């Protein structure tokens, strides 16, 4: 059974890699298969872990009819496919957006206030000074109500350098991530072939 699983996994891995040479039916087969398997695996799991315990169990076994309200709003999502009643799907969307809104104050704390506080600490080390300089100069760059000329232009130019270094770091990390994914698959192939030979 394990061997059959390994053969299928090796075939699908090679089928996906075959795209590097050119598009072909084996690649497309593997691509469609992954979409089908993901949906096929997900649907019964969602049914078992969401629909059964939070709809069937609650309403029909525990008789907690309050759960009919979220079920009703959930059903409204399906009207998105109707031309005449599509507007009904906006209500559950509005409720979802309201929930997102509830997190705005907390987001303000984590993403803005704490960050601002940490940007206003004493310049005790060279690293903190670099962070301070970067924060100020990048903010200069994004201030467009003044022409970027003279001393002001020079400061905003430093901001551009900071951003370029940031983008470079992100790109370097991206290359590393992509190579890691390739390593994962090649590690699997190498180990499997080693196992077969042994």
């Amino acid at each position, binding site marked *: 059974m394990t061997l059959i699983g390994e053969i299928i996994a090796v075939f699908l891995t090679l089928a996906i890699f075959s795209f590097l040479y050119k598009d072909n039916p084996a690649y497309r087969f593997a691509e469609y298969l992954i979409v089908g398997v993901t949906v096929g695996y997900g649907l019964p799991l969602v049914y078992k872990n*969401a629909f059964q315990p939070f709809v069937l169990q609650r309403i029909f076994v525990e008789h907690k009819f309050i759960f009919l309200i979220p079920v009703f709003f959930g059903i409204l999502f399906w009207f998105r496919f109707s031309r005449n009643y599509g507007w009904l799907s906006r209500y559950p969307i509005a409720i979802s957006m309201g929930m997102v809104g509830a997190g705005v104050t907390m987001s303000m704390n984590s993403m803005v206030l704490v960050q601002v506080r940490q940007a206003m600490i004493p310049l005790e080390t060279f690293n903190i000074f670099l*962070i301070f300089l970067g924060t100020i100069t990048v903010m200069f760059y994004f201030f467009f109500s003044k022409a970027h000329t003279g001393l002001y232009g020079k400061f905003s130019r430093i901001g551009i350098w900071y951003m370029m270094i940031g983008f470079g770091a992100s790109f370097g990390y991206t290359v*590393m991530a992509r*190579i890691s994914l390739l390593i994962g698959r090649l590690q699997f192939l190498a180990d499997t072939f080693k196992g077969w030979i042994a």
Partner: protein
Amino acid sequence: MNFIKNLQGLDRRYVFVFIAVAIIMPLIFPFNSLTYTTTPVENLYQLIDSYSPYVRADDLNGDGIISEEEAIAFKQDRAIFMDFFHDASTMPELFPMEVAVMRHCIYRRVPFFTFTIMEVAAPIIEEAISVVTDEIQKTGRVIERGKDYINIGYKPPALYLPILLGMGDDIAAAVETDTDGNRIENLPMYRDTAIRNYTQMNLVYETSGSDQGLSWMIYARSRFGVNVGVGLTAVMAADQYPYLQSGQCVGMTAGLKGAAEYENLVDMFAMNNLTFSKGQLDNPTEAMMANLDITSDTVPTKFKMARLGMNAQSVAHILIIVFIILGNIGYFLEKKKQNKNL
């Protein structure tokens, strides 16, 4: 010179072959290379280690060492919570770090919860648990589901926020059942310990290929002060540094490198049942060094996947750098020739 200029027009498929060979060779013929640990990884390791009964239990017989019996007898009042937020596409980077953190917890008897809101992550959790427990149980240690760890498994995304906030009061009320349908309050890890909410479960370790860890910082940290550690794909690592710098994120394992660092720390300290110390990290003993030899069988291959991968990563990076340099030389030579012809 013509060779370098010809590289400009090289079919990209040759580049793919070069990269493939550069990666496969170190995987087939592994070698030892140095892995330096970074502060974010050390911080995460130290925090998890501080929850260990080997650190927290009372030294009953007064010999200065917490024995296995003393650690087992200790009523555990600390745990970590692991949130898996990724599918198979990011497994090469995230799976080794999840395995390393679980190994750390099991070696040091730190209870852990596993949880996901992505249905495709549910089998990844089971796979990680089985990789770790199967291998460690070969040494004779029995690891019990519900006692050493609780796998909450998949919960619908709509319940993410209610669960996240509800665990501030009581985890058993917030998630109700584990993945096998057992009620949390009936499981020994909850019933027989003092673990109830974020006060005891004071570290959330979230692994993802996105900024999902922010949700824990925004809601759980802001409201309950819970420590948040993240395991990220390398692509997302740069975005996380502001939160590390501000202290909202206590530690981070970034990409394959982060996983390799964590594997190193587990092999050096946890495998030898030692508490982390910077001094020993810089001057390791022979026993610690023996576990770091990835060419030997001291540590099973499953537990050194990130370090094996990092060797291939290093070779691939060198090759890419060489290609970039050659490509640029070719570009400037071509430009010089064009300028001459004008």
